[in-house]
């Protein structure tokens, strides 16, 4: 197991290097740079630009910037924000907990609804409940979360003078208010995940429920509850867990929009602000941190197969 984890961790390095290459190069291909943003609404002279560029330490060829960045990243130095001059890691860690909290809650909501409903749908195949759940899942997959979030923010305010909590409160200031603020945004992110999990679980369950060992279990006279939960669900979960791992990246991208609508100061808002301000070190830092997070999540998913099915040997 340890050897497997080490091998997988080492195999992440080329992925991270390629990710960094993409981010560094693509960012610099964007029209306009941080100097343009800093000098917007002001027709600056060449000297003004030059002074700012020197102050910010930009203007090197892309290849040099890439090598410098990789060298720094290897020692844990992701640079400093062009705007605040704060270390990028400090800036990111100020925001990452918000995004992680939102994602975790959405994962909990999505998993706790998606998997049981998928099982139920499979067990009740071709009944009204099955049709209803499948229809709802299609609806949940079809409605974009930004639309849902905007509707939940604007409609109750317009018609009932009520809006969900829109102002972020730090956990240290008021834990309950802090938690309340996350509930609705997480509920807005969860439906897509829930519907995907539900459909995958249903499909896998239907397959498993027709397996010989399930028929054997039933023939032994085991109650249906045990047949489903002890013999079927666990065996149906491997693709579901894979899907869950893949959905971490989807949730992360959804969080960007939802955070902005609900005023959550997470990575999403930081990313958008940094993109508008062309704060390359922060954008690169976010890409590195989220990229590594997604890769590690998938590593954990792979490692979990062994626990779900002992026949699987990791290596």
């Amino acid at each position, binding site marked *: 197991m340890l050897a497997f984890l080490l091998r997988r961790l080492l195999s992440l390095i080329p992925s991270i290097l390629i990710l960094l290459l993409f981010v560094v190069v693509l960012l610099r291909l*964007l*029209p*306009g*740079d*941080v100097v*343009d*943003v*800093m*000098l*917007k*609404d*002001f*027709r*600056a002279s060449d*000297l*003004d630009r030059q*002074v*700012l560029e020197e*102050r910010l330490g930009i203007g090197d060829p892309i290849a040099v910037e890439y090598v410098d960045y990789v060298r720094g990243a290897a020692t844990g130095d992701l640079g400093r*924000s062009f*705007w*605040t*001059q*704060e270390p990028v890691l400090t800036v990111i860690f100020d925001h990452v907990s918000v995004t992680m909290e939102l994602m975790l809650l959405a994962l909990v909501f999505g998993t706790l609804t998606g998997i049981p409903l998928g099982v139920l749908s499979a067990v009740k195949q071709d009944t009204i409940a099955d049709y209803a759940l499948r229809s709802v899942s299609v609806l949940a997959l079809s409605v974009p979360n930004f639309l849902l979030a*905007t509707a939940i*923010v*604007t409609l*109750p*305010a*317009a*018609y009932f*003078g*009520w*809006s969900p909590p*829109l*102002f*972020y*409160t*730090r956990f240290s200031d008021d834990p309950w208010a802090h938690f309340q603020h996350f509930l609705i945004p997480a509920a807005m992110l969860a439906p897509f995940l829930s519907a995907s999990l539900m459909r995958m679980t249903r499909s896998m369950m239907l397959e498993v429920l027709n397996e010989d060992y399930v028929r054997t279990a039933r023939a032994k006279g085991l109650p249906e509850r045990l047949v489903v939960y002890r013999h079927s669900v666990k065996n149906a979960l491997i693709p579901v867990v894979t899907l869950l791992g893949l959905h971490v990246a989807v949730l992360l991208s959804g969080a960007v929009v939802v*955070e*902005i*609508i*609900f*005023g959550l*100061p997470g990575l999403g*808002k930081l990313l*958008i*602000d940094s993109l*508008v*301000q*062309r*704060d390359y070190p922060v954008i690169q830092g976010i890409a590195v941190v989220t990229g590594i997070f997604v890769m590690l999540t998938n590593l954990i998913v792979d490692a979990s197969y062994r626990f779900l099915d002992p026949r699987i040997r990791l290596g």
Partner: protein
Amino acid sequence: MEPEQSYWQRFWTKKVTRRRLVTRSLMAGAGLAAVATVGCGDDDGGGTTTATATAGATTPGATSTPSPTPATGLPPFGGEAVLHTQFQFGDFNPFRSPFAPSIGGLGCTLDTPLEFGPLDFELRGRLLDSWEIVGDGSEILFDINPDAKWHNQAPVNARAVDAEDMALNITRYAGKVDPSEVRLASNMFGLDTADVVGDQLRLNMSTPSLSVLNGLAYYQMTVHPREVIEAEEAFTDPSKFVGSGAFVLDKYDNGVEAIFSRNPEYWRKDSLGQQLPYLDSVRFKWLSDPAAEKAAFESGDVDYIQMLDQLVRDEILTARPDTQVTSYLAWGSAFNFRFNTAKAPFSDARVRKAIHLALDYEDVINPILGSNWAYSGALSAALPEAIPSSEISQMPGWNPATKAQDLEQARSLMSDAGFPDGGISFSIMVITTQQTDEMAVTIQSLLKGIWPAMDVNVEVVEVADLSSRLGAGDFDSVVQFAPRLPDAALDLFNNYSTGGSLNWGAYSNSALDALIDDSLTAIDADGRSSAILQAEETILEELPVIWLGTVDLAQGWDPKIVGVQQLLGPGSTSSIADSHYHSSRYGIEA
């Protein structure tokens, strides 16, 4: 132009003091009565010059004295206003990014050297109490407001604001220390050095100019204690800012929440002699999304919202019919359609003029602003020295009643320029966040309706791209929400002079440059007004920029906030900063 002459004559011949303004305001009994009925005394004039004696030092952020007690019959003062902002900044260096400390809440802890009367646009003292222009204008001497002191917080601990503070701030704003701190340098036009003479501040002018005075009243020109400037900590950690303003900074959690409490020793009093501000505290919250801002106001979570867009305004008033609506002609808020005059076809003034004559301004603006805008010539319609909006609206192109003749002339001009069928091709650059995309599409449609052969593209870009391309002159035309300055000569200089800092279209006209130079350097009121008027007329002939309109800025207020109607006028600061600036001026009905 009589009113403008009298304004500058007053400006030039009188030594303006706050004491004189107080005397004047006390005489305005009827005005006071009107203000009193809404429970908020006007601070016009800044109060008396006697010190606001409060025993002992105050704990930072604490309100050691009770809220002012209103005169009999007035609603009680005090309470907390909850405001919001979208702006989250990283760089708080006021000299490099002056927008950051002037808004986002911090504005209510700070003062500017001078200010404009919000209702009359008249220049008056703030931290600088009065001024005297010496001799030929090569020196301007200022007295410091004797009542102004910094908040009782380290490292200044309630010491008096002095001339050294002022000199350092002005020197930095003029870009004399760091070449990257040039954002407001043009406001300091003609300044050579700022130094201290006795207790006074002296500006030594290399080019005598009256514009520097208006520049000192610009709302972004916030003044900071020299200890804070020298330490530079506040430039990255805004919680380290210490000001002299109406509110004391209690907490600044950037992007989350900022809390400010009443400065019980603020130098400013209302015209009834009552201590300002009325509010006990102001709480700023950050919201990033316009839909969330609207929802927060509709649900009563915030007390203020800006309602630029007509559609949003209608929706808010439907959801909250009790919303108090205010509006005022905002000198700093205007939309323009700027041509790149260095490139064909807009290098030809006939083409620019033809397009102006062909436009229906109401069609372009009304769908966004409704009726909340004013026709503008070369200057913001709110400026006292501008050709009045009522006159502009009667001129060819702007006047809806003469549109048929205007169209005929537009076709003729286009034909004279070599495009009988209007067959020019150009793009209009816009960014999506300013509602200018809708205006550009309307312009496109109007022009194609008149000249079907005209090829007009609307090009949507991002803000960094816009900035980069404007700087490089890589555009045909642009429709944008453009910044303006509260001084006519400076605004002309930046927008139209050769190499001007906002002259993105590279317009160059030596005769106009000379007129703008005259308007900047004239130190007699008549000469300045005459040069400005001539410059405006020249610009209206040449039209390097079409000003689509000056915004009559609509704002919504929770009904518990009283008195704002009396405090908003053309001299108010523009945009969201209003809510911050005026937080020292309104009260809450408890």
